């Protein structure tokens, strides 16, 4: 009997783990490694020379800053949308629920063209904003933020929704029985339970925004140093047949996103452990 391996608690684990690693390597790790390899052709100093130019840094500020802003907007309003969809029944709620996924399904370029048509100075919304507030939206950083908000919305709603749905009503009932107001029970009981999911949604929306190209490019204006996003700079470098330079910017983008996502994940884990106590 000793020649036979002890049966595992999880049958098929070896097989599935092998599959997982192979699959991840082929689909994720290999292309990313190729990217890093291409950039490595520049050497360290070449890499920093390609990346640390005022133009690239300005684009980083635009991409990361506006993605953060858009993700923050989505965290607030996506949360409200999820709340309404879970807690209230109203006519057409299923339709609204389906609408949330549209930014996922729509080709991003189509979204970009639609948004820029709406927000252009002669568009439906753009002309009104111009008339009432003298506010230019399309072809400014504000336009970029709107495009990023559009594509990021489903991430927050779809991560918060299931957690909210599964929240045991007993906790809220107990809070009410102990004399908590609605606001107190929301702030002390419901919200802390949802916070990790909300942060996940925020992080996903943010990561998506940083890499977004199609929907932004039509509404951005693309003025160097002002409304130029990082993915556009990569395209520009490719247009000059500067594959290594493009890869270098890509690698920096990857590193920055990875660090930010890791930080958010750690924060999330910390909060989950705190809430569990």
């Amino acid at each position, binding site marked *: 009997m000793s020649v036979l391996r002890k049966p595992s608690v999880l049958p098929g684990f070896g097989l599935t783990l092998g599959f997982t690693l192979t699959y991840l390597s082929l689909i994720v790790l290999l292309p990313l490694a190729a990217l890093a390899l291409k950039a490595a052709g520049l050497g360290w100093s070449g890499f920093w020379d390609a990346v640390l130019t005022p133009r690239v840094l300005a684009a980083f500020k635009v991409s990361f800053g506006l993605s953060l802003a858009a993700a923050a907007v989505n965290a607030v309003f996506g949360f409200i949308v999820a709340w309404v969809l879970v807690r209230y029944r109203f006519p057409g709620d299923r339709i609204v629920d389906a609408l949330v996924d549209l930014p996922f399904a729509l080709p991003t370029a189509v979204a970009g063209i639609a948004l820029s048509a709406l927000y252009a100075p002669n568009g439906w919304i753009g002309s009104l904003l111009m008339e009432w507030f003298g506010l230019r939206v399309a072809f400014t950083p504000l336009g970029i933020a709107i495009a990023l908000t559009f594509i990021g919305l489903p991430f927050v709603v779809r991560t918060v929704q299931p957690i909210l749905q599964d929240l045991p009503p007993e906790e809220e009932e107990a809070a009410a029985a102990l004399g908590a107001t609605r606001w107190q029970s929301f702030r002390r009981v419901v919200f802390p339970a949802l916070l990790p999911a909300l942060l996940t949604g925020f992080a996903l929306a943010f990561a998506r925004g940083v890499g977004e190209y199609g929907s932004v490019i039509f509404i951005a204006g693309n003025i*160097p140093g002002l409304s130029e996003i990082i993915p556009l700079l990569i395209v520009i470098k490719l*247009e000059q047949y500067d594959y290594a330079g493009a890869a270098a910017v890509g690698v920096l983008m990857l590193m920055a996103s990875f660090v930010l996502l890791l930080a958010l994940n750690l924060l999330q884990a910390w909060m989950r452990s705190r809430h569990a106590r």
Partner: protein
Amino acid sequence: MGRLSALAAGVALAMLTIAPAKAQTTLLNVSYDPTREFYVEFNKAFAKKWQAENGQTVTVKQSHGGSGKQARSVIDGLDADVVTLALAYDIDAIADSGALPKTWQTRLPNNSSPYTSTIVFLVRKGNPKQIKDWDDLLKPGVQVITPNPKTSGGARWNYLAAWAYSLEKNGNDEAKAKQFVADLFKNVPVLDSGARGSTVTFTQRQLGDVLLAWENEAFLSLQEFGADKFDIVVPSLSILAEPPVTVVDSVVDRKGTRKAAEAYLNFLYTPEAQEIAAKNFYRPRLPEVAARYADRFPNVKLVTIDGSFGGWRTAQEKHFADGGVFDQIYQKGR
């Protein structure tokens, strides 16, 4: 014996099945965006001619996109028998990858450009801002729409035309030319990534007072949106835009399509094809065809990329590479 005859029959059968396959040739023409309509018409004419002369059916497939993006696809292995791109620079990049000789541009007449175009101004009907020449683009309050020279081949022609105009006007003063394009780009509110994007911004978003455009795109806009909306203004000096064509040697030699591919490109230089080019708003090279379309294509002083800028490689390096003049004018002003 029986086995041998079976083999012979087999070979004969194989020859039979190969033979009809050989009567059918497929070419892939990898081109840039605004040539779509032209090549649809041209391919039909070529197929007819090829059928009449060789008894073969030839099918030409088309691929369109940004010129630089198309060149990268060919470098990365897209099986293009011929490339018909917006800039010689993009074909140079393919040559650098070894797919065709670096002297490709001498293989066909006229710098391998069978048709030409130039850069003109498209303005709103009646020309409310009175834009007549390049100087008018620098006036305060005039909004100029042009794509980004870093991402668009057409925009590079725009930029170089403005530069050439300033050199001409200021006795070849480079510093003044740099200031001229810097002032011009201060009036540019949006840099779209491609020529079609800028056309949409100007015609549909109603943004800007003047669009710097390929002449053929300007005519297409008139045709599409009606001549009652826009006017074409031809500046006093512009640039001779020469979209080049060539055979991709590595592909045609592998596929055995060299003969058809070469015939395809040579056909571009015939009166029949030149007529189709002119109908699609490209300036024909053949003088007798050009004469018939003289009213459509007004005479304008045209500088060339080789004459005024020392060829595409030099121009690209100086103006559009990282840290080049175009980058400098955006670092200074903001």
